[in-house]
């Protein structure tokens, strides 16, 4: 039986999914605008894998926290486990702190509700802005002290192929595994990127009153690492509500 961290025990809900259906639409729509995945979605994933495994109990992470890979050990099926872990990790990637600069269009977003970047900026040919309005015209290697301008080394936009805006976890997962759309990285390199990239790290230290991505960079990297170790299966059969 899964050992549930005590702090989360109170939030346990036991639900069996009706098949391996990820309730995709819940993801961006949940609770007050913040991206949050509930136990329901996790467990629905966990209950898949042929439909005969007993429903394991999984904890629910607080909005600002991440589950650990160990929290998923109750899921018997390795692929299901990888899927569930990925969904948890996707809470980071689809958090505004990360997806704002992985836009599907020509310009990044700001804030928690996808507001267009102000001043208006364009990605330019190299995703670093346009002449006289480069990302680094304003963004420094760290957050500005008195201004709200966020900063981290090499501030830039993700290439359009790596757009996360509007993606479901499943689509995001497929994209991450596709070297054409992940910056030509191996899965190991992705883990490394998640663990140590300084721009990624900014997501947890965004400064001012911005809500950080859930958990910590280490917790996120541990999830990505576990997902890769578990075979890197992707959530499937997504249903958009």
């Amino acid at each position, binding site marked *: 039986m899964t050992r549930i961290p005590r702090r989360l025990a109170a939030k346990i809900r036991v639900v069996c999914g009706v098949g391996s259906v990820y309730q995709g639409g819940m993801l961006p729509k949940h609770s007050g605008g913040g991206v949050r995945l509930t136990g329901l979605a996790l467990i629905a994933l966990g209950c898949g894998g042929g439909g005969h495994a007993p429903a394991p109990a999984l904890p629910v992470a607080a909005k600002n926290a991440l589950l650990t890979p160990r929290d998923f050990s109750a899921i018997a099926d390795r692929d299901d486990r990888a899927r569930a872990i990925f969904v948890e990790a996707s809470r980071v990637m689809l958090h505004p702190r990360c997806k704002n600069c992985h836009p599907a269009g020509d310009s990044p977003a700001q804030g928690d509700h996808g507001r267009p970047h*102000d*001043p*208006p900026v364009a990605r330019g040919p190299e995703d670093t802005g346009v002449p006289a309005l480069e990302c680094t015209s304003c963004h420094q290697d760290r957050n500005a*002290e*008195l201004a*709200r301008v966020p900063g981290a080394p090499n501030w830039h936009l993700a290439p359009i192929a790596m757009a996360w805006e509007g993606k479901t976890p499943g689509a995001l997962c497929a994209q991450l595994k596709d070297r054409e759309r992940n910056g030509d990285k191996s899965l190991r390199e992705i883990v490394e990127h998640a663990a140590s990239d300084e721009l990624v790290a900014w997501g947890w230290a965004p400064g001012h009153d911005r809500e950080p991505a859930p958990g910590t960079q280490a917790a996120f990297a541990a999830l990505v690492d576990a997902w890769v170790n578990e075979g890197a299966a992707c959530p499937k059969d997504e249903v958009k509500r």
Partner: protein
Amino acid sequence: MSESLRVVRRSFLVGLGIAVGGLALGSFARAEEPGGPGAKGTAGDGLRPNVFVHVAPDGLVTIVCARSEMGQGVRSTLPALIADELGADMARVKIVQADGDKAYGDQNTDGSRSVRMDFARLRRTGAAARMMLVTAAARRWKVPAATLTARDHAVFHDATKRSLGFGELANDAAKVPVPAKEAITLRPLSELKTVGRELPLVDGADIVTGRAAFGADVRLPGMLTAVIARPPVVGGKVARHDPSKALAVKGVKRVVALPAPKPPFAFQPVGGLAVVAEDTWSAMRGRKLLEIAWEGGDNAGYDSPSYRAKLEAAVRAGGRVVRDLGDVDEALAGAKRTVEAVYHAPNLVHAPMEPPVAVAKADARSCEVWASTQNPQSARAAVAKALGLDEGAVTVHVTLLGGGFGRKSKPDYVVEAALLAREMGAPVRVQWTREDDIRHDYYHSVSAQRLVAGLDGAGKIVAWQHRTAFPPIASIFDGATYAAPGQLAQGVLDVPLSIPNVRAENCEARAHTRIGWLRSVANIYHAFAVQSFLDELAHARRMDPADHLLEVFGPPRTWSPADLGVAELPNYGQPLDEYPIDTARHRRVLERVTSLSGWRGRAAAKRALGLAVHRSFLAYVAVVVAVVKDAAGKIRVDEAWIVADCGLVVNLERVRSQLEGAVVFGLSHALYGEITMKGGATEQSNFRDFRLMRLHEAPRRIHVEVVESDAPPSGVGEPGVPPVAPALTNALFALTGTRVRELPVVRTLAV
């Protein structure tokens, strides 16, 4: 007064060593200063017929600009006009900026008044100098003065082909009595080379090279910089505070408490705590670390949504009748149909690109100030009062202004610098941050208006009722809750309406923040409501809006106060016989703008046009705005046409640039501009939440036409603004079918 400044603690930290550079401020003219223009001068020092002109024996002509330059082009216009009247060559003219001094007459640079108030007066200053130079030449040559002409910096006797340069005549001319005002002969207008011309931009080269000196650029030896934490709510004060973290910042010298103001607030600083440091960054850092608990005071319950409801209730209830013609009640009761609309416009902030800034140097007996100010005389008076000095002991130098729009007429920030300079015993620059500017402005009034029209069986307008409610400007001076006639004469009392029954009512509105005048003032919301409502009526009556406006203005004629239904009409301070309300001029600008914009053929285009016409500051302006919707459903302004009849124009080039700018300024506010209050405090803080129009949002083209006119000169800086918002919303109605009755537009439509 300095006793009221409480020194919190002196920091012993030594900050940056600030390099002291040269002051590249140009020169300042002090009327009473020995040797300055306007002083009696000493023999051999050349000609000084008045405080505006000096002709030196070496031929250099110095001309004083006594109005503040904030982009409207006064420095490129007024001295050139004086030089023209004198016959001086601008290449040998030095322009100096006047200090604040009543000797120059009115210096308050607002109300679009510089040319309209100074045109004759300034010409006389140049003409007096010319006459004295001519008299001196006539004496020397022993010929009648009438046979001489002054031009090209010299006096000519054409009959004998002799000439004498101004410099050669200057000392002799100084001995000639200064002609009395009545004896001064002005050149015929046809002889003036500056009138109706495109004059060079005198500060252009300095601006594009970074040499131009704005208020923020003044640097004095030993100067400190202060950044002030002000009460978020007007009338609030510091309950308690802990300066220790601020004082621990390297470079911070002291934290100084400023006195809380007493109502009426007028031009007093709002109080708070000043962090005084050796450099700007240290002061900003220090302020961030101040720990302050504020007391809200009487205005802490002020919320914009509930205040709006109050204003709208006021215009439903009615107010004091200020304009009355016929019997509106009876006409409405007998109307076949009535049309009614309520309009709302929000508070706005001036937000000049240069936030308020002033530098002061003071001791127990005197104070010297350098300020980006529109009104150096009121700054001088306010500083004198705050320091307990005679005005004569206060000198106010005027720098270039990085925008003003009315904000820099109010010298609260100049007083802050003076108080701190005396307290610190060192020159102090008070730098407002953008957040300070947005949060502690003298805001443009929020307003509500209700308009009702009665139509008879034939669809003719038989009744017009206009109620307006807005916290008045006078509230800052005397707590007034009803607008003064001067503000009502901005689009309520002065609109010619060929309608038999007209009534306007002034409704009560109490101010809960500092209210101030913003470029075009009450005309902004009044023109928005009146010109929107006339467009609504045109649609209700199935008339072309242009034809409808022409019908409402009526035949070309001048309108007396009785025709308007008012006892008297404040006419921007100028007489009605000289500056009448003339519907011929309304009609002319309308006809020109519809012709230029292709108004009559507009149905064929994919875009929609909107029209508005408004007289303000004695100028008549018509605007057409074209709007389009892009593939994503977002609306943008595509093109704009503005036609102005400003009477006689001096510097046509700057008039055109003012009108272009007015279109952008008006569109920016109409589309995005809004200040809201919560708990008495301003919710916005910087350009991220007080949105301004950016380059890519500006119309593709703005067409400007200035009507040729020999009527007396009107205002120019402001009158372009009022018709822009209603022209836009009328165009939006034509495009989308949505009638925007509340500003900004972004509340209603995706723009």
